């Protein structure tokens, strides 16, 4: 059946997000909070994250354009950004945030700039993948019970 095939595709898509390291266990935590009364909780919180994080990225980008760099301020902004990335299980984004913070602590301007570009890339990639995943999940019907990736 078409729907069964779609659900299988959704399952495979979800699995690959974990196996490729885009998402971690925290995302499963979000899925476990979804129920009949809140069927779109994961998508809702992901949307909230992207709305907030886009503003954060702009702020950090503007701060990076100023010279000399205020590493303290940059670190504070990144701390917040890392926090919300971690709360939705955005593993690769969180890892780049951590790297950025380490460069901030070392006062390494080049490192910060380089990592920031990587971070933006990971952030955009995850956004595309999640959008595709949510769209397909909506078309396929109710999500299967959350299960830990093997």
């Amino acid at each position, binding site marked *: 059946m078409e729907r069964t095939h779609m659900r299988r595709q959704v399952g495979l898509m979800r699995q690959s997000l974990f196996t490729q390291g885009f998402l971690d266990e925290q995302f499963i935590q979000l899925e476990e*909070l979804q*129920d009949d009364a809140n069927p779109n909780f994961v998508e809702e*919180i992901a949307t*909230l994250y992207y709305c*907030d994080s886009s503003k954060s990225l702009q702020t950090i980008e503007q701060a990076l354009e100023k010279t000399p760099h205020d590493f303290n301020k940059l670190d504070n902004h990144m*701390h*917040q950004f890392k926090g*919300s990335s971690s*709360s939705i299980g955005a593993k690769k984004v969180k890892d780049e945030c951590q790297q950025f913070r380490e460069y901030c602590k070392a006062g390494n301007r080049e490192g910060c700039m380089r990592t920031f570009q990587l971070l933006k890339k990971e952030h955009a990639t995850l956004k595309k993948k999640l959008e595709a995943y949510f769209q397909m999940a909506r078309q396929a019907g109710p999500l299967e019970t959350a299960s830990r990736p093997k």
Partner: protein
Amino acid sequence: MSNFEEAHVLVVDDSSVDRRLIERLLRVSSCKVTVVDSGLKALQLLGVDGLKVDLIITDYSMPGMTGYELLKKIKKSSKFKEISVVIMSSENVLQRIDRCLEEGAKDFILKPVKLADVKKLKNYMKKPSTTRFNYFCCIYYYIFFLFFLSFFLFFCVFVCLSQ
């Protein structure tokens, strides 16, 4: 679920993602939830608006008033010092944890917050239902006592009359 079973939790966090997540975690755990994005708003709700809560969960790192400063203010207040406060942070800094616990925080949760963390929090909440449960238990014990006393008295009267 009857209302008086629900504990009321005040969540203080400047991150909208974390506010939404923790609110959902608490609702799933049958708690009533109020969320604010700053320590100042929390104090305003408690003081000016007279909000009654059983537990306060606050993020540590917030602009303006930190979670630690909020904790101190609550513990110094004669009106609110009995309310349990739990601190959350994404950074596992021992000094920070010790400082908060010394200042009277009940617990320190490492972010990202999970359902297991929230389930533990129930231990720190005043349970409004407990007081009422105890009250009803006393009433039942009283009724049973009266019943047995009456039965005993009737028995005594019966014995006296039969002699």
